[in-house]
């Protein structure tokens, strides 16, 4: 396959950055998208240029490190996958592919396609936990039975990998899907109910401080989410938040 890549290059956070065009040849349909970038980088290094910086780690769709906005979509045109699971067979010979970093005020670019998603961490610091110490003397795990449906829903919410595709794809750069996934996970479990009020207030407060946009319920996040996190979580968080505000 022969492709034209239009990649965002930016030396560092202060640099202005621009799209640079790279022709590339000899790409096989069996390659993953990131392996295609590996090939490009190898060519750049051999030419004496600086390779394109991009985040990646597990390359099996679970660590959430890889990002990339490919041809106008977070994690590219395929559904239910991260960029590292995207394969070149999704593209045609001769295609032009835009590759940009995830964009949001709360995700500043560090270099090229690498962005700083520490805002997500700070939201978690604000309340993404259940306050229980590691004593080894907690009650036996089977003491509290949990409705399987709730447990399954909590799991579905907890499957979030924190990649930031929801923010990147949202026209408002809203982080509601991400935050609501964590709020929902704990809201659905009896262990999490004790701190529910403070948790939702604090996490949403931090989310707002980070400069994410507001949710306008377009549903784009749910569709682009590689783990299929449901919009139902956002509704649940809205509910939790309303209840907490009225209470608190």
């Amino acid at each position, binding site marked *: 396959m022969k492709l034209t890549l239009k990649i965002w290059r930016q030396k560092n956070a202060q640099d202005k950055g621009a799209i640079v065009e790279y022709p590339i040849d000899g790409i096989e349909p069996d390659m993953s998208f990131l392996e295609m970038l590996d090939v490009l980088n190898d060519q750049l290094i051999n030419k004496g240029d600086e390779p394109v910086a991009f985040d990646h780690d597990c390359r099996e769709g679970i660590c959430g490190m890889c990002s990339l906005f490919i041809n106008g979509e977070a994690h590219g045109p395929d559904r239910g996958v991260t960029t590292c699971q995207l394969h070149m067979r999704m593209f045609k010979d001769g295609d032009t592919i835009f590759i940009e970093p995830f964009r949001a005020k709360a995700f500043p670019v560090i270099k090229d396609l690498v962005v700083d998603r520490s805002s997500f961490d700070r939201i978690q610091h604000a309340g993404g936990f259940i306050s229980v110490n590691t004593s080894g003397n907690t009650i036996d795990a089977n003491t509290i039975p949990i409705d399987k449906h709730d447990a399954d829903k909590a799991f579905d919410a907890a499957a979030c990998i924190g990649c930031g595709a929801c923010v990147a794809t949202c026209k408002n750069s809203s982080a509601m899907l991400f935050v609501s996934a964590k709020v929902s996970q704990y809201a659905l479990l009896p262990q999490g109910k004790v701190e529910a009020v403070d948790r939702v207030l*604090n996490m949403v407060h931090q989310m707002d401080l980070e400069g994410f946009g507001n949710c306008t319920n377009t549903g784009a996040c749910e569709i682009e989410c590689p783990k299929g996190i449901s919009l139902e979580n956002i509704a649940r968080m*809205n509910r939790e938040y309303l209840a907490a505000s009225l209470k608190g």
Partner: protein
Amino acid sequence: MAQSALLNASILKKVAMALSGLFLITFLALHVSLNLISVFSENVFNEASHFMGYNPLIQFVMQPVLAFGVIFHFVMGFVLTIQNRNARPIGYAKYNGAANASWTSRNMIISGLVILAFLGLHFYDFWFPEIGYKYVAGTAPDATRYYGELVHKFHDPIRTGLYCVSFILLGLHLWHGFSSSLQSMGMHNKYSRFLSKVGYGYAVVVPALFVIIALFHHFNN
């Protein structure tokens, strides 16, 4: 948490947006029913309009509430839109919004602006003359004038056309707005799915009725 922070919270803004929207949706139902009367009976329409125009409860309580609702909804709409724009200072070179969200959901500000512009025209046509008639000039009440005024306004094909286009945009606005308001208020279950369907029906029927009424008067007279 500080109270001021609560009032600034993104979620509460959205809830306020949803509530004001639902309020305006209810008002639309009232408005379309009144207009519909004009198709069937000139006299009943005049009576109903007169009642609305001179009942103190409606004039001095409901009308200000409505005005507040309208202003709140669009001011908040602007505020949220500006905030949302600011949340992504550098945009994408290529953004394929159509891949994952409907046009209506992505362009509420556009359909909203059209509706706002229409409101300007509508006020110019009906509300300002009405205020002038009643409160500025202090003209004596006349319970028979409404139908004639209405018909007169729909004489002009350009105005009728503008009205119809605006109603279509209103339909698009409602299409996303209704189900979105349920989601914003935290409803996401089988009931909200049913209500959303009702909402889609509403988004089609009400604007369609407005259009039919406008065309009716345009062609009938």
